[in-house]
């Protein structure tokens, strides 16, 4: 019963839902071998590229010549794409500008895809269905007009959703408090032991001060009368 629902909403088949995509790329941070992997994740999609560099493998490449040089493109093509992917949105100021502008201006038919670490998990071909589901669940705000998707979101944001989020928050808080107590107690115990050695252990002769006969048991340590231990 849910197969059709799953195929339509949770694991949308590539090429049927989206055929035309735009990649906004940071030319300074994206490795050359990462962009071609997009084809494995979103098969059947024809990509355009907004970048500072000329690259092959795209239908069109819009080169950014200056800051905000791609603004007109974002505005003119705001409804033209099915999905928009950001590559390495962190670490590049201009790309952050474009990602925010794209989020403000563009209305892709399906969703935005934030691919901030393009060379790892996100672009493994076998993870394609899971990644598409993640993107469509998280960034598929255009789908809210769809009644079924809206119902799912409404259900998750109801009292049950609140209970789940409150429970997770509670668990995290308890975990942080426990970690804080553990870190404090263990550090305090270590400092207490060090204070004990400071008071009762003679590092020059390697013996406790209240066991003065211990020195005779370790004559080899008396070879060098060092002024202090190695630091």
């Amino acid at each position, binding site marked *: 019963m849910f197969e059709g629902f799953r195929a339509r909403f949770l694991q949308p088949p590539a090429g049927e839902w989206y055929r035309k995509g735009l990649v906004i790329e940071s030319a300074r941070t994206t490795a050359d071998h990462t962009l071609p992997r997009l084809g494995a994740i979103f098969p059947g999609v024809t990509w355009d590229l907004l970048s500072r560099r000329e690259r092959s493998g795209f239908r069109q490449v819009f080169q950014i010549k200056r800051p905000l040089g791609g603004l007109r493109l974002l505005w003119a093509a705001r409804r033209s794409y099915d999905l928009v992917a950001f590559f390495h949105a962190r670490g590049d100021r201009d790309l952050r500008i474009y990602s925010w502008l794209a989020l403000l201006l563009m209305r892709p038919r399906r969703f935005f895809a934030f691919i901030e670490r393009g060379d790892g998990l996100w672009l493994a071909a076998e993870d394609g269905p899971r990644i598409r589901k993640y993107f469509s669940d998280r960034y598929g705000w255009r789908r809210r007009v769809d009644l079924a998707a809206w119902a799912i979101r409404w259900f998750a944001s109801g009292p049950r959703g609140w209970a789940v989020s409150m429970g997770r928050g509670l668990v995290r808080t308890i975990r942080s408090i426990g970690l804080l107590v553990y*870190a404090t107690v263990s550090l305090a115990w270590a400092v207490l*032991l060090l204070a004990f*050695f400071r008071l009762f252990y003679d*590092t020059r002769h390697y013996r406790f001060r209240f066991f003065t006969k211990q020195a005779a048991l370790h004559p080899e340590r008396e070879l060098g009368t060092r002024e202090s231990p190695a*630091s």
Partner: protein
Amino acid sequence: MLDLGCGPGTLDYPTYRHLRFFGVDQYPDAASAHWPANAWLTLADAERLPFADQVFDLGLAGFVFEHFATPGAALRELSRVLKPGALLHLSIPRSNSLHDRLYRFTFKGGGHLQRYSLESFVEMVYAETAFKLEGYAPSQGGFTWLRDVPSGEYLYGLLFRSFRAWAQLGWHPLEASDYRMLFRLGDRGGYQRVDHVCAHCGTAFLDAPGQGTWQCHGCGFVNIKVPSSVTRHLSPETHV
């Protein structure tokens, strides 16, 4: 290669058979009796090294300068015995770090006569010698000194787990406990301290007139002048 403050041996000498090591320390270490044929131990003060001028190609001084009463004299001796252009690898603890504080707390000072920060140490090196900093790296404290106390392994594990928990909470007290630095002996010593840098254009000046503010000669930006009472040790001066 000169290994100043070698103790039992800063490096694993047999690994570097193509090098000859001359270890210098004030006290003998039991391990030095088992050193290989390419390493020799000399008992001497760092302020008066018993070597001729310009004989060493490399210098190594790992965590010894905090023990010296007169580190400037030791630095001058190092610059004397090293060849021009020779490299010097130096390690110092950052005295404000928790790692060094714990060490000094446990061993009642532990022989650390000097308190260094990266800036103060480099300033001293530049004032005393012609060594120029080529690179440096902050490193975490390793608690190697816990070997000298009973149940040191237990203590190390305790501290390790504690600091790992602190790190998960966002506090990294062991970061930059020590500094590893690489100097190269240049042909000219001294330095010029620049203590007025325009906040707008970045142009540096040795001195800036004016009382409360000073105006940049390059861009005209009006900067706030820091009172000399605050930067007592940062007064404009030239060491040549």
